[in-house]
């Protein structure tokens, strides 16, 4: 049992800090950082030339706001370099002046890591989008850090390969941001985490030094593997300027099924669908995702164009209309016929045994696209619905859904009406759009659940009910409080729930070695001292 971690955070960071930092309230500004002067802007201008520096408050504003609309900084200036040399010159100046800097890619991060907390300068990779190379022999793709994931995916596809990761934000997120957050997503099950597929990185350190680790060799055991430290460092150790990544050969044939299952147990348990899939589909299995009924309802209501793949199941088999869980199972292989035969045999047996109630098999890429859009669109649908308290947790697969039920119970007893009291959105009792809603979805095959509490607005009382309870619950069940989104600003004070004090101390010394002045993405990842 790893419950020893439960007691950690309170002792470690102190309850006062906890209360301040865990909320959406900002930690205080570090007064050691310089304030931006006109003379700094002149230097930035001289490095970047026209169009490289944004200071118009209207144009700066989107760089100050996070994707969820939960965090908002007060940065006054956005830097948009095009080259590594420019990043280096910018950071040399910022460290000389002790100006704090937030690296920003596509700004789709979900933990408030990509926007300033106070007046940090935003360093955006938005103009660093060049594809630097592709090795057809090995599948190694090299690109500037700001290249958008979907663009790289298209480039890899053109060449018969695929990116080793895919996620719902692929149209906006940048490869540098993916590496900086160690993003997981729907292909992790098949291709493993970025720690395996990133071959090399080019990074500019806080002082402006360029660290060239941009090897595209598959194997390289010369000394400490420094690039690993930057994977998941969330902009706190250096600015990633280029990425070399291993792209697997694209599978010629993929097949997709969307299944209704009678319970979470049936989905994963010893004799559940996941295990059957692992055994019978083996190496073909390429994604195993889940959504609960509440997630489906939110997507149907708030995602433009979303369609329920099993709308008529209530007439065919009455109880599937109320099926509590749905799975998205993808297989990828070399032959369409073989795929279809394997998938059908697998589905026939799981359905025969009652572990699957009903389901559909996509008959073409349009249907497959619609099903993926539904699963991947839940995050966006939740944003359309209102405020979101988002917890990206991992557990042993068997236990991963428990937290969703526990959260529902907790909210139901605190808010018996199902609504927040007072303020906007509290009025009409029947207006379900304003009801509190607890949904769970995510990467079942990897034990990663996205617990989301959807509310009409951000509310301190609601937040206090969820946090730190959700972190305590997670630690008590030996889970991780951040499976793939990172800690960012939101969970920096909470690292102790998942890491022992010795580890946090070592992280601090690593941070100090790379960024002695602490100018890179301050107030993020590590708890306040």
């Amino acid at each position, binding site marked *: 049992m790893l419950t020893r971690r439960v007691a950690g955070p309170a002792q470690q960071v102190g309850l006062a800090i906890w209360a301040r930092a865990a909320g959406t309230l900002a930690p205080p500004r570090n007064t050691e950082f310089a304030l931006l002067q006109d003379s700094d802007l002149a230097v930035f201008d001289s490095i970047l030339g026209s169009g490289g520096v944004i200071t118009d408050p209207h144009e700066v504003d989107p760089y100050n706001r996070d994707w969820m609309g939960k965090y908002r900084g007060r940065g006054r200036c956005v830097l948009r370099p095009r080259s590594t040399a420019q990043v280096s010159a910018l950071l040399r100046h910022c460290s000389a002046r002790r100006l704090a800097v937030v690296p920003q890619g596509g700004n789709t991060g979900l933990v408030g890591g990509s926007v300033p907390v106070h007046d940090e300068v935003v360093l955006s990779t938005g103009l660093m989008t060049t594809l630097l190379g592709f090795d057809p022999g090995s599948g190694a793709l090299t690109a500037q850090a700001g290249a958008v994931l979907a663009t790289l995916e298209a480039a890899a596809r053109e060449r018969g390969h695929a990116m080793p990761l895919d996620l719902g934000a692929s149209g906006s997120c940048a490869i540098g941001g993916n590496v900086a957050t160690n993003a997981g997503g729907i292909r992790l099950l098949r291709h493993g985490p970025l720690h395996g597929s990133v071959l090399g990185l080019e990074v500019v350190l806080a002082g402006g030094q360029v660290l060239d680790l941009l090897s595209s060799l598959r194997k390289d055991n010369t000394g400490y593997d420094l690039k690993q430290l930057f994977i998941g460092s969330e902009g706190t150790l250096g600015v990633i300027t280029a990425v070399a990544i291993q792209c697997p050969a694209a599978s010629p044939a993929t097949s997709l099924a969307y299944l209704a299952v009678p319970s979470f147990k049936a989905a994963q348990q010893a004799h559940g669908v996941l295990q059957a899939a692992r055994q019978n589909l083996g190496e073909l299995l390429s994604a195993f995702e889940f959504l609960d009924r509440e997630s489906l309802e939110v997507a149907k209501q708030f995602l433009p164009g979303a369609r329920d793949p099993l709308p*008529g*199941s209530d007439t065919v088999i009455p109880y599937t209309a109320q099926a509590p869980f749905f799975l998205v199972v993808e297989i990828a292989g070399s032959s369409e016929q073989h795929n279809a035969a394997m998938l059908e045999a697998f589905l026939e047996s799981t359905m025969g045994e009652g572990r*699957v109630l009903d389901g559909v098999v996509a008959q*073409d*890429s*349009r*249907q497959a696209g619609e099903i993926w859009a539904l699963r991947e669109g839940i995050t966006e649908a939740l944003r359309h619905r209102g405020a979101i308290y988002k917890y990206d947790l991992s557990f042993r697969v068997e236990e991963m859904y428990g937290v969703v039920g526990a959260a529902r119970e907790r909210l139901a007893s605190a808010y018996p009406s199902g609504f927040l009291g007072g303020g906007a959105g509290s009025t009409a009792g029947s207006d379900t759009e304003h009801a509190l809603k607890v949904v769970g979805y995510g990467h079942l095959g990897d034990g990663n659940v996205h617990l989301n509490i959807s509310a009409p607005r951000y509310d301190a009382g609601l937040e206090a009910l969820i946090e730190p309870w959700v972190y305590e619950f997670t630690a008590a069940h030996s889970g991780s409080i951040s499976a793939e989104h990172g800690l960012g600003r939101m969970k920096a004070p909470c690292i102790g729930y998942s890491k022992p004090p010795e580890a946090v101390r070592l992280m601090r010394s690593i941070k100090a070695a790379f960024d002695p002045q602490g100018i890179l993405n301050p107030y993020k990842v590590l708890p306040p001292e």
Partner: protein
Amino acid sequence: MRVLVAVKRVIDYNARVRVKPDKSGVDLKNVKMGMNPFCEIAVEEAVKLKEGGSASEVVAVTIGPKAAGDTLRTALAMGADRGVHVLEDGEVQPLAVAKLLAALTRREEATLCMLGKQAIDDDSNQTGQGLAGLLGWPQATFASKVVVDREAGRASVTREVDGGLETLSLKLPAVITADLRLNEPRYATLPNIMKAKKKKVDTVTAQELGVDITPRLKLVKVEEPAKRQAGVMLSSVKELVDRLRNEAKVI
């Protein structure tokens, strides 16, 4: 009333189309294939007619090689009652397809033929019209709404035309071709996919149907469209005017 619905196996609309190096056609090796989207819509409409009580039986027909049988199974999984597979490995041009369908319509004594308005591989948009001509039946192409009045023996079909909607009233038997907005085809559910395996599929050949399918058209060559040049971002209106005047020479 028996409905005959035609389904064609085509290259998946998302697949990357590669022209064969000798320009003799499109390379279909290892390319994802599936039912023509307009055929899917036709199947959905036929199944709806049956569910709504206007049709008594839906017979799905495909013409093509063995693999086209998969497409037929999809139609059966969507709710067609049985299938007919005209097994032909070679090229079958629109006129030949129309003749085969006419022969089958007579053989099956169908009262309504549902087709997609066109197939997305060749975009010929001829089969439905040809079929109606061969049978001497009324036709309504590009349907966006279909209402069948069984008692009156008529179908009312709405079509999207330039500037509005046109509604036709046809006397059955008739031929109707489906446009994009007619309906949203359903997914094939697992129980229905399993049921479809047990549904009856007849296999026939053009010869058995007494239809000559010798190609009448000669394909000269297939070429990829010219690559579009990438756009350029200009920094000012002045530069735009300058380029339009001096480079494009349009003003």
